[in-house]
């Protein structure tokens, strides 16, 4: 059975197999493996410097591992060219990072529309699709504001809308509430998990925060560059 067939049969939408990656002489991943099923929300936990963000970047095709394989939807991701990985990230993946990372020159709605505009959708339909997210995420009336005119929680919800507007198959979220107070963070996680569960979007969620991880279907722990499943954890 080929890798493509095997991945399709197991129903894993994204999978890391034995990833190793070093930054200079410092190993970040040492044989990390993780399989995420379609529609699953998986929290990747671990102490600072354990390699959890590096694992996310490899799964998303941002980094290429030194050893091992990354599979997405039956396709080997790590062996694709830079251009093809970029296209895949643009068209099939969504991203939410710790600090929104909105483009300050653009309005909130233009920020949300950005992934659609970059993938060739005309401005009218892209903006219309972007605006539909504002009431969903409690952002009514903020469409024309720029990032400097938004609170941290509002900016992160705009970033969430941007991550979901193109209806990605996988949303990669790296400490999405890390810069927020507990109430704003909780709102972001409530909205994120509600939105992805309604759409069947798969989520890989990197967090050091157990309260954030508790929104996931299951959690794995990265220690010393390897992925461990907690003893007694149930699928």
């Amino acid at each position, binding site marked *: 059975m080929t890798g493509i067939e095997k991945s399709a049969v197991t129903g894993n939408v994204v999978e890391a197999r034995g990833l190793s990656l070093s930054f200079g002489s410092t190993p970040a991943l040492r044989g990390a493996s993780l399989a995420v099923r379609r529609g699953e929300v998986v929290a990747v936990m671990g102490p600072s410097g354990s390699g959890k963000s590096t694992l996310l970047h490899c799964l998303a095709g941002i980094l290429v591992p030194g050893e091992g394989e990354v599979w997405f939807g039956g396709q080997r991701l790590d062996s694709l060219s830079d251009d093809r990985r970029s296209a895949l990230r643009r068209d099939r993946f969504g991203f939410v990072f710790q600090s929104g990372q909105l483009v300050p020159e653009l309005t909130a709605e233009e920020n949300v529309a950005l992934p659609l505009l970059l993938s060739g959708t005309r401005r009218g339909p892209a903006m219309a699709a972007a605006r539909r997210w504002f009431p969903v995420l409690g952002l009514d009336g903020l469409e024309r504001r720029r990032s400097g005119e938004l609170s941290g929680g509002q900016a992160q919800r705009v970033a969430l809308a941007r991550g979901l507007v193109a209806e990605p198959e996988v949303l990669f979220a790296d400490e999405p509430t890390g810069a927020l107070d507990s109430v704003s963070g909780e709102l972001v996680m409530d909205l994120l998990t509600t939105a992805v569960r309604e759409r069947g979007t798969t989520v890989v969620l990197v967090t050091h925060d*157990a309260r954030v991880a508790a929104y996931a279907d299951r959690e794995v722990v990265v220690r010393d560059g390897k992925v461990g499943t907690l003893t007694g954890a149930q699928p």
Partner: protein
Amino acid sequence: MGEGGIRGLAAAGNYQPRRQFYYLREYSWGILSGMSVPLTLLGLLERGPSHGYDLKRDYDAYFGQGRPLRYSQVYATLSRLARDGKTVAGPVEQEAGPERRRYIITSDGVAEVDKWLGEPVPPDPDLQSELFTKVVLALMLGKRADSYLDTQRAAHLRRMRELTSFKQRGGTLDVLLADHALYRLEADLRWIDHTAARLDQLARAVRS
């Protein structure tokens, strides 16, 4: 309260209780066990005169969490409060049903409630926690404390998932109670992670 209220957690939809874990109901018993039922009933009476039946209903709805008061407990408590001058019992009312009395809080009762509400609850440092005992004993005996900590971490995270799911379906009171449990579990988890990172050092300390 939210869908089914806190009391409905165990019976809610797809919630499958697992014997080996504690439930929100049991958690509530834990945090409310030190709370005075008489003072709580007295506080409810400060809203206005009330029958024992209505007091029991409100107590169960707000604070019972699967552990409702018995009627006998309510009426015995109300009698003691009246004896101590904290309440007075109104005349017997008998319309169509059984005999009923309204209870009215006195100024002494109001002062008692005010005093109680202003007092801090003793912080519980958990210095004798079973979790701590298991880790130290495992290290003393040369057993796998790290495996135990992993198992405990998984149990805590599973419980946090259940509480988070419950919060997402619940109302404001449910959210506040679940948050209290979540923050305490999170504190345990931080201790677990902190301890896991120092196991070698701890092992040397307990074996020396």
